[in-house]
């Protein structure tokens, strides 16, 4: 009852106020297309401004011509008819941001999708924002552990980096990204998973997985599914970026996964074609490069003077038939600081994660790699490179000398050790111990099918006997001579 009284009082107050005279900028809907409306009037509307149709239905101005205004509709566009009135709101699209977002699933406008209470916040961040300039930035030099051996050793990722994950469908792109989120437990990294044009069932499975591993406490899911309008799909990554910027401005490290930018480009293509913008290659509009470059440029590492903090971006691109030289893949490859290339053949032959080490690079991550990992990874890379050369060559030769056989054997073992089950990220020390064993030849005598068994045995022993060793390496991120000897002792004990 009290609530109703209060409610009535505010209404009374509202009604007693003399009608305020204020001018509004208005227009009329002249055409409605798939998710896009063309309006007449609105002469003084600005690019990027919000317009309101009827009750709580908003539009976002993205096209201004001499006599018309084009806007994308944020929400259900089926109710809009030609002749409807629209008024300009005078501000640009922004999303509510606060700590309470952690653990939530939201749509690109910041409304909840998980059936919980709306996100309440006094702080709003603009969805479109110019990225930090040169002065505010700092080079990438702290590592972001993915928990995946092959990536942390060979293609290290640093905080503030943009690392593309590229591959055909069903090669484990999302798995790598989600495993990376799972591995950020206790690392003080806020993770944002942004699903663009994905199946709702897939997103639900990921939300469930995050919950199961306790990763929902530091994660946010932004979802614009395949059934949402293209306008929502177009906005989703920018919203994710805006939320990331809020946490970055507070000095925190943020990881954003954009899954995936191919579908984002598709949604932008659809919008542009409906707006009759000139089409270019593969019918994408001329600014499709800028579409992704302005998004990924927002990933950065801020200098300590300006508050520190970083946004690491893991964009995902789906290729067709492994074609890395298609339009969108080449664009995004050139924007990012390296790529993780996944291949169907490797995946089917049981090498999972199916990373093609030859095609994958990390252009800035080397500086960020921890010393402990660097020490073991250098040798590993050399072993693998030699193995690749020799493996191709040895197919023609039947008689091989001892030295070559040794290289081939080592390479096969290293390839085997880089395999990893999904949703089982490993800590830095665990990775270092296994890779150390491989690169120092302790696995050379083991048959291939026993390597996995050895790995589990080693990890168990480390958990029982080497707890201190693990903690020390994880904390200092350096492996000195004594640590090496301790590890050697544990491994030799295990081999007997």
């Amino acid at each position, binding site marked *: 009852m009290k609530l109703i009284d209060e409610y009535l009082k505010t209404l009374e107050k*509202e009604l007693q106020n003399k*009608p305020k005279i204020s*001018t509004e900028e208005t227009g009329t809907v002249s055409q409605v297309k798939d998710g896009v409306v063309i309006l007449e009037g609105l002469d*003084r509307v600005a690019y990027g401004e919000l317009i309101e149709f009827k009750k709580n239905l908003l539009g976002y101005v993205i096209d201004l011509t001499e006599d018309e205004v084009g806007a994308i509709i944020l929400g259900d566009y089926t109710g809009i008819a030609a002749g409807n009135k629209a008024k300009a709101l005078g501000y640009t699209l922004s999303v509510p941001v606060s700590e309470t977002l952690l653990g939530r699933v939201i749509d690109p406008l910041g409304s909840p999708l998980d059936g919980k209470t709306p996100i309440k916040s006094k702080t709003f961040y603009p969805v479109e924002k110019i990225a930090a300039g040169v002065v505010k930035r700092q080079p990438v030099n702290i590592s972001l552990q993915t928990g995946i051996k092959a990536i942390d050793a060979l293609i290290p990722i640093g905080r503030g980096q943009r690392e593309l994950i590229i591959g055909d469908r069903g090669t484990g792109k999302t798995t790598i990204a989600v495993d990376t989120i799972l591995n950020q437990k206790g690392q003080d990294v806020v993770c944002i998973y942004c699903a663009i044009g994905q199946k709702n069932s897939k997103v639900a499975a990921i939300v469930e997985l995050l919950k199961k591993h306790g990763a929902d406490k530091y994660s946010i899911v932004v979802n614009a599914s395949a059934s949402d309008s293209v306008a929502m799909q177009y906005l989703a990554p920018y919203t994710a970026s805006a939320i990331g910027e809020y946490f970055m401005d507070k000095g925190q490290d943020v990881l954003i996964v954009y899954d995936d930018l191919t579908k984002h480009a598709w949604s932008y293509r659809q919008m542009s074609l409906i707006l009759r913008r000139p089409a270019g290659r593969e019918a994408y509009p001329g600014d499709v490069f800028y579409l992704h470059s302005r998004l990924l440029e927002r990933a950065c590492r801020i200098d300590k003077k300006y508050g520190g903090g970083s946004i690491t971006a893991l964009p995902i691109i789906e290729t067709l038939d492994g074609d890395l030289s298609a339009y969108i893949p080449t664009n995004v490859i050139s924007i990012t600081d390296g790529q993780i290339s996944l291949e169907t053949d490797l995946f089917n032959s049981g090498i999972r994660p199916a990373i093609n080490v030859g095609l994958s690079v990390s252009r800035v991550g080397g500086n960020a790699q921890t010393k402990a990992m660097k020490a073991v990874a250098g040798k590993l890379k050399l072993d693998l490179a030699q193995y690749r050369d020799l493996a191709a060559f040895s197919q023609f030769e039947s008689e091989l000398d001892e030295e070559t056989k040794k290289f081939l054997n080592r390479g096969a073992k290293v390839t085997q050790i880089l395999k990893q089950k999904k949703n089982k990220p490993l800590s830095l020390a665990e990775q270092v111990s296994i890779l150390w064993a491989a690169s120092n030849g302790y696995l050379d005598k083991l048959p291939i099918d026993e390597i996995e068994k050895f790995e589990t045995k080693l990890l168990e022993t480390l958990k029982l006997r080497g707890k201190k060793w693990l903690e020390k390496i994880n904390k200092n991120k350096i492996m000195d001579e004594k640590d090496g000897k301790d590890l050697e002792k544990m491994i030799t004990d295990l081999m007997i």
Partner: protein
Amino acid sequence: MKINPKLKDDLKSFLMEKIQKEQNLVVVYSVDNLDIDEKKALEKKFTDLNWKEAVYKIDKSIIAGIIIKIGSRTVDMSLAGSLSKLSNNLYEID
């Protein structure tokens, strides 16, 4: 055939002038015809508008009050307008 650039400029400025006029055209919507006193009161209230070429139109759907339109700008002082505003507010409090 080449078009005389001067002709083009003239045409452009003519169009601009026309658009300008359209943009500043005052249209008043009311439920019934306004009498002279009411019109004078309006002129007194909104002195910066061009009342000489004002157009008066009748629209029953606004229930009561008036709506003034100057190009795409709108001053809504109608009952229908305030009711729809109220309904939006009711939605928000919910």
